[in-house]
């Protein structure tokens, strides 16, 4: 209830701002703009469409010139081979579990940390926030050798928790939620709840989460995409016996099944969940990236 009351004036202000800003600036696109954009759109989509074409052909056909430009009849057979022989079935189940867990945990903990950085006063908060942003500069390569050795010591080789634990919460998520909550969560609301004697946890539950919900949804989508596509650490930590999708695709590409049409079917299958997510939530994902950018 309170959340909707709040967003109305905000949305109004935003619309007003857009009207004022857009007045002189948002020129209508000419035909040339559409032509150039169409070209870029084709380049964006063509490799994906061609993946589906190649996945519906046979290996021998793909080796011939000219390359196929339309669909053949082997799509489901190739997908089946990729699903069963290349372990993509296990991989999809594993990745759904891994990415799902990471998403829930990242959204939850990032919202908590983002709220603390956005609205709570505590000692060293400025330094800690800078540190959080700074950690985004550290390449994952700096961690994989010790992680691999510890994992071997623990006997965790090839177990899914090894790829879940390191990404349970991210600096990006924390910063993203902080940037959102700074603007979207009025401090008066928190103070009002405080005056009523609400504990911090109650404030989080009844004030922060409702206000943060749109950003949490977007962060969830972005995190899921990231976790689904994570590559470096999974291919070191896991192998073909218990793979994620990317590990299975890596195995496919390095000669596990030397059949190009099956490889393409695997690539298509492994991308399909995210393509569906883009079809359903593309607008939100675009909004999230733009929102993260404008203040980042």
């Amino acid at each position, binding site marked *: 209830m309170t959340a909707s009351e709040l967003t109305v004036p905000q949305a109004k202000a935003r619309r007003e701002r857009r009207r*004022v*800003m*857009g007045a*002189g*600036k948002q*020129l*209508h696109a*000419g035909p040339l*703009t559409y032509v150039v954009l169409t070209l870029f*759109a084709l380049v964006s*989509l063509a*490799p*994906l469409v*061609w993946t589906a074409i190649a996945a519906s052909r046979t290996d021998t056909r*793909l*080796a*011939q*010139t000219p390359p196929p430009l339309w669909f053949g009849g082997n799509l489901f057979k190739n997908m089946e081979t990729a699903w069963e022989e290349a372990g993509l079935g296990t991989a999809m189940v594993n990745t759904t579990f891994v990415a799902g867990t990471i998403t829930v945990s990242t959204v939850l*903990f990032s919202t*908590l*940390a983002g709220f603390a950085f956005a609205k709570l*006063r*505590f000692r060293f908060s400025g330094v800690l926030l800078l540190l959080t942003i700074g950690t985004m500069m*550290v*390449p*994952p*390569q*700096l*961690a*994989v*050798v*010790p*992680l691999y*050795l510890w994992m071997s010591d623990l006997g965790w080789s090839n177990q899914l928790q090894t790829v879940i*634990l*390191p990404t349970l*919460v991210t600096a990006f998520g*924390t910063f993203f939620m902080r940037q959102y909550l700074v603007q979207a969560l009025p401090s008066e609301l928190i103070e009002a709840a405080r005056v009523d*004697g609400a504990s*911090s946890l109650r404030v989080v539950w009844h004030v922060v989460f409702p206000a943060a919900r749109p950003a949490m949804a977007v962060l969830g989508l972005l995190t899921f995409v990231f976790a689904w*596509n994570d*590559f*470096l650490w999974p291919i*070191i930590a896991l192998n073909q016996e218990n793979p994620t999708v990317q590990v299975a*695709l890596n195995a496919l*590409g*390095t000669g596990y099944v030397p059949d190009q049409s099956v*490889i393409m079917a*695997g*690539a*298509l299958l*492994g991308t399909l969940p995210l393509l569906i*997510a*883009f079809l359903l939530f*593309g*607008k939100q994902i*675009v909004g999230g990236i*733009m*929102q993260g*950018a404008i203040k980042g």
Partner: protein
Amino acid sequence: MSSPHKALAQPASSADAAPGDEPGAAGRAHGRGTPPRDPGDKGSWRSRLYRWDMKASPYAFIAPFFIVFGAFSLVPLLYTAWYSLHNVQLSDLDNQTWAGLANYQNLLSSDFFWNALWVTLTIGVISTVPQLLMAIGIAHLLNYKLRGSTVWRVVMLTPYATSVAAATLVFVLLYSWDGGMINWMLDFVGIDPVNWRESDWGSKFAVSTIVIWRWTGYNALIYLAAMQAIPADLYESASIDGANRWQQFRHVTVPQLRPTILFTVVVSTIGATQLFGEPLLFGGVSGSKGGSGHQYQTLGLYMYDQGWVIGNLGKASAIAWSMFLILLIVAVIQLLVSRRLRKSQ
């Protein structure tokens, strides 16, 4: 074992309660004038809890991030430095001996390391510069009033949904020497087929196009967001001064985008320094070598090759730290250059 424990706990708790009772009793004994004790006392207990909650909860909220970061990034980062000073072999993990700076000396005298550095730099430039230029152009077009603007944006972002692995597998096929789509199309315009996997610059170009394909739309959206935040009166006053569209773009849009450009350059640099999956899968079966002449063996790939294919984890750690140091140096240079540019304007 448990009963003596209980017995111990019992007096302790009653002793705890006793001092709490006493002042209360004393207060009551002192009589009428004092305010009613019960609510006040409860309030101070509650307010103490409240104050403690206010003080501790921010730390509790940020703790998960710092615990995860500490356990899985910071401590490993330090251990990587430690291992880089040791001889750590994958085949003999129990036998780690002190090596001093030998791993780093080994790197500095290794042609493969300098080659990997060169490859990372060249692919980084070839993939980042055109990518960001195109992204600004696309953002500029997307910033016009478009029919179906959301659809255009989602379409531009679609490659971002494709994983490194999936994208690279497709591009490998598109770039295949014999019967690949790209050579077939080049043939149409009369260009001889290129052996994309084996040639020096051809392979670097091919790997770069995968990066460009995946990230251009993403960066375009970031620029678009920044463009939409540029105040309209800047354009109005520019057009009053007689600036045409190109001049407006050059003298209003680009300067206003400068912080965003710096941001994307830094992010792209971080990404380019770690480049790994694209060259690995581009190379196929012996991908970790980065081609027969190591012509697309990036630092990330070189580290993986040394660590997990050859099995020298000490050296891999040294490569990782070299990567980090190079990244820091590049970031500092970028900051200095951007500061210089800002001053000169």
